[in-house]
């Protein structure tokens, strides 16, 4: 296990993670290390355990075995699943963020775009309405939304706009670690391309660490520094993204790479 210590310590480590649904394997024997500022992609087909792993890492799902450690902004190392519920919730609202595939799972659909963007700031203790609104406006522009629509509810936005709003809502208070589950899934390709460009820019500008789950190898090629390839709940191959995609060693990875349709 990697110890979270030394001059260049990782942000998150998971060791021996396993999760079973009854007799069925969600994921097992998974070790993950995430360093500050790096994007770790998790790929594999449907049912390979990607989302189960993400939910275990993000503290949303208790693993059957294994442990997840996180180094907080104050430098203390916490066992994510041993934290009292309020501490874990606070972590999720402040230092972490989750971007869901379906923006409706991450947004409050009944309140305005501005209120969505301001929520994490208010949770952190911001109380000055004008300041919160002005940061919400900045973020509307940052995620390439029309600032004139800050008072509209997300219902009135297209799918691509909702996804950009969700990303703005998560990044508004500069989290250190963001979990993304198929952030470009369900969007048409032109909207996907724009979102990918936006994510790349924000990840670099904010020096974000990201765990990115996707089945789309094109997305990880452009966004991820490192890859984990999952099959049947286990990591079958891992390494630098371009090494894994250009020189896949495992039979399953070779099959995945060979299955991408050329345009």
């Amino acid at each position: 296990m990697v110890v979270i210590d030394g001059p260049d310590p990782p942000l998150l480590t998971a060791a021996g993670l396993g999760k079973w649904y009854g007799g069925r394997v969600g994921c097992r024997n998974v070790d993950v290390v995430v360093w500050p500022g790096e994007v770790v992609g998790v790929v594999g087909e449907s049912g390979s355990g990607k989302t189960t792993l993400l939910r275990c890492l993000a503290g949303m799902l208790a693993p059957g075995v294994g442990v997840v450690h996180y180094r907080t902004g104050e430098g203390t190392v916490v066992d994510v699943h041993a934290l009292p519920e309020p501490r874990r919730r606070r972590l999720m609202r402040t230092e972490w963020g989750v971007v869901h595939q379906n923006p409706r799972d991450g947004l409050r659909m009944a309140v305005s775009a501005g209120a969505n963007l301001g929520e994490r700031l208010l949770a952190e203790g911001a109380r000055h309405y004008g300041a919160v609104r002005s940061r919400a406006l900045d973020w509307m522009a940052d995620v390439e939304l029309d600032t004139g629509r800050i008072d509209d509810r997300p219902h009135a936005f297209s799918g691509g706009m909702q996804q950009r709003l969700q990303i703005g809502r998560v990044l508004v208070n500069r989290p250190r670690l963001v979990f993304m589950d198929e952030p470009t899934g369900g969007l048409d390709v032109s909207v996907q391309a724009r979102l990918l460009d936006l994510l790349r820019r924000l990840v670099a500008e904010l020096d974000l660490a990201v765990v990115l789950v996707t089945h789309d190898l094109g997305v990880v090629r452009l966004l991820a520094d490192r890859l984990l390839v999952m099959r049947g709940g286990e990591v079958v191959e891992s390494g630098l993204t371009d090494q894994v995609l250009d020189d896949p060693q495992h039979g399953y990875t070779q099959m995945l790479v060979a299955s991408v349709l050329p345009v």
Partner: protein
Amino acid sequence: MTVNLEARGLSKSFVLHAQGGIRLPVLCDFGLTVAAGECVALRGPSGAGKSTVLRLLYGNYRADSGTLRVAHGDGMVDLATAPPRLILAVRRQSIGHVSQFLRAVPRVPAEEVVAEPVRRCGVPTAEALDRARRLMARLNLPERLWRLAPATFSGGEQQRVNLARGLVAGHRTLLLDEPTAALDATNRAVVVDLIREVRAAGTAVVGIFHDQSVRHAVADRVVALAPFAETQGSAGSAPALG
């Protein structure tokens, strides 16, 4: 003599699991030492493994055995055994690879594609863009193209964007895969000048140059590669002609 790149005993084979685990050996016991300011050309027929060697030297393909030491910071890093994060740092700061084809994020303007490697080294955006634009101007890329995404560019234009992106960060070691293949005579001459300039500044270059005149103009040495079956992978070294 400062050595910027030193490969020893590199071997590589591909195992194709979908085809009954067939093993394709492509390189055996390959060695190469390149000093600062030196340019080595890889030569050989199609399929001899020239691009494979460049990809191995960049850490893009994983060597089965051997060492691959690259000058980085105050020392040398063995890319064959370095952890992924260290390989990324070496690529950011010390070694560049210009592939045959440009691979860019859709819809990102050419000048940002070119400036990105500089920005990733921590240079402010304005300065990075300035360096990118100067290099694009040098490579005769018309200014009206700079703000456009390269996906719609011609082959030669894309290749120059790719070259500019590869050269802009001023890496100490450069790997060039057919950098002039899609270029006309004028732009070939520009690329030859650029390669000579980076060499004069101390960059070590390993390249594949199909154009004989380009090869003679930039390289001091030629390393000949033959298809694996003919030679069992031995690579000879000969002085460049002319």
